[in-house]
C-alpha cells in the first residue's frame, strides 16, 4: 500500500483552513466527470518538506504516510501519495486545500514536482503522445536535464522489471489500483454504457513533472482520450481523431519522428536493453522538442502584441498555438457532447446498469 490513511482523514485535517473546498471535494471525490478518467497525485518535495510535517504527523506519521512508499524523485526529501479522486477538478481542489492548510505553494513551486497518475498502462506510442501533448500544452515550459527524471525506481542495483529509467512518462510498479470509478463504455443507443468499475484491473501511466492546474487538466484529457481509444470507451472516436491530429501537428513541424523515441520504459521495452541507452535516446528526442519549443517562445515574444492581434500575422502560428488550439478543441468537443447527453437525461437516463433504482 502506497499510503495508510483515508482521504476522509486528510479532508478532516484540511477542513479548518479550506471548508468550502473540502465540502466540494467530499461531494465530488468519486464522481467521474464527462467520462474522463480518475486522477491520482504524488507530491515530490525537493526541499525539506517541513510544510507538510504537521499534516503528515496528524495522518499517522511519516512511517504510515511517506515511508511506506519506496518510490520518489531521486532528489526529493519526500513523496506524498494522495488517494485518487474521480476527476481533475477535484484533484486540483485537493491541492488547493493543502496549499491553504500548509500556507505554502504547491502549484508553480520550483521545490515541488507533481506526478499525475492516470489509470491504464497506455501503449508506448500513446504514452509518447501524452508526454508530448503535456509538454507543449503546459503554461510553464521547462528545460529539463536527464537528472530531473531520476527516481528511486530509475535503475535498481540488479536488473529488475521495475526499472523505469529516467523518463518523463512512467508506468506503475504494480502498486495500488483503485478500480472503483465509473467507466463510460461504447455507445448504447447513442449514450455511454456506464460501468461501475474501470474495465482493467491494474496499470497506470504517470507524468512525472506537472507544475500547474492546466497541466493536470491537460494530462487528464489526453490520457482519457487515449485510454478510451485503447479500451473501446465512449470517447473512442475522439481518441482516434486526436491521435491523427497530433501526429499531423508534429508532421507540420517536422517532428513526426519524436514519438518513436523510448518515452516510457517497461519490462517489455525492446529498444533499450540497457536502461541508460533508452535514457539517452529519450533525452535526445526531449532536447529536440525543447529546442524547437524554445524557438517558438522566442518568436512569439518577439512578435508581441502583433501575435495576439485580431489579424493574425503572416505565416504559421507556431507549435505552441497549434497544441493549445488542439487541446481546447477536444476539451470543447467532449464538454459539448457530454452536456448534450446530460440534457437528454430528461427524456432517457444515461444507461447505467450500476445505478440504484
Amino acid at each position: 500500500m502506497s499510503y495508510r490513511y483515508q482521504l476522509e482523514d486528510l479532508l478532516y485535517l484540511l477542513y479548518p483552513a479550506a471548508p468550502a473546498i473540502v465540502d466540494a471535494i467530499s461531494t465530488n471525490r468519486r464522481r467521474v466527470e464527462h467520462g474522463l478518467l480518475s486522477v491520482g497525485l504524488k507530491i515530490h518535495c525537493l526541499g525539506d518538506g517541513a510544510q507538510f510535517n504537521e499534516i503528515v504527523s496528524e495522518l499517522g506519521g511519516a512511517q504510515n504516510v511517506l515511508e511506506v512508499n519506496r518510490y520518489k524523485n531521486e532528489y526529493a526529501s519526500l513523496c506524498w501519495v494522495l488517494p485518487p479522486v474521480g476527476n481533475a477538478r477535484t484533484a486540483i481542489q485537493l491541492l488547493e486545500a493543502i496549499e491553504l492548510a500548509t500556507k505554502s505553494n504547491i502549484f508553480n513551486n520550483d521545490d515541488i514536482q507533481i506526478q499525475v497518475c492516470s489509470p491504464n498502462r497506455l501503449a508506448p506510442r500513446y504514452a509518447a503522445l501524452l508526454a508530448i501533448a503535456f509538454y507543449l500544452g503546459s503554461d510553464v515550459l521547462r528545460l529539463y536535464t536527464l537528472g530531473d527524471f531520476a527516481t528511486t525506481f530509475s535503475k535498481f542495483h540488479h536488473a529488475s522489471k521495475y526499472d523505469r529509467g529516467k523518463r518523463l512518462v512512467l508506468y506503475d510498479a504494480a502498486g495500488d489500483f483503485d478500480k472503483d470509478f465509473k467507466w463510460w463504455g461504447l455507445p448504447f443507443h447513442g449514450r455511454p454504457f456506464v460501468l461501475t468499475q474501470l474495465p482493467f484491473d491494474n496499470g497506470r501511466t504517470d507524468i512525472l513533472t506537472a507544475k500547474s492546474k492546466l497541466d493536470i487538466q491537460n494530462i487528464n484529457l489526453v490520457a482519457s482520450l487515449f485510454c478510451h481509444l485503447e479500451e473501446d470507451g465512449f470517447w473512442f472516436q475522439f481518441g482516434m481523431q486526436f491521435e491523427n491530429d497530433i501526429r499531423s501537428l508534429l508532421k507540420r513541424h517536422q517532428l513526426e519522428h519524436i514519438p518513436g523515441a523510448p518515452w516510457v520504459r517497461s519490462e517489455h521495452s525492446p529498444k533499450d536493453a540497457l536502461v541508460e541507452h533508452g535514457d539517452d535516446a529519450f533525452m535526445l528526442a526531449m532536447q529536440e522538442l525543447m529546442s524547437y519549443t524554445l524557438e517558438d517562445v522566442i518568436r512569439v515574444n518577439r512578435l508581441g502584441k502583433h501575435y495576439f492581434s485580431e489579424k493574425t500575422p503572416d505565416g504559421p502560428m507556431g507549435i505552441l498555438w497549434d497544441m493549445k488550439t488542439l487541446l481546447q478543441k477536444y476539451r470543447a468537443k467532449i464538454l459539448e457532447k457530454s452536456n448534450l447527453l446530460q440534457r437528454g437525461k430528461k427524456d432517457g437516463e444515461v444507461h447505467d446498469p450500476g445505478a440504484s433504482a
Partner: protein
Amino acid sequence: MTRAHQPNSNPIQIPQTVPNPLYTPQPSPAPAPERTPERVPEKVPSKVDHSPGETRGFSFV
C-alpha cells in the same frame, strides 16, 4: 538558472522554466482618448410658422 557558455564567450543564463507566452497575460491596449463630438448644425425647415404646442395641419374648434 543554468549557465551555459563556450570558452572565450560571454556566459548565457538559461532559465529552467520559461512561461508559455500563450498563457502570459497580454497588456490590454490603452483606451483610445475620447473625442469630443463635432457639433452638427440643426437643419432648420425653410418655413416654420406654427407656435410650439400647436400641431400643424388641424386645430380644434
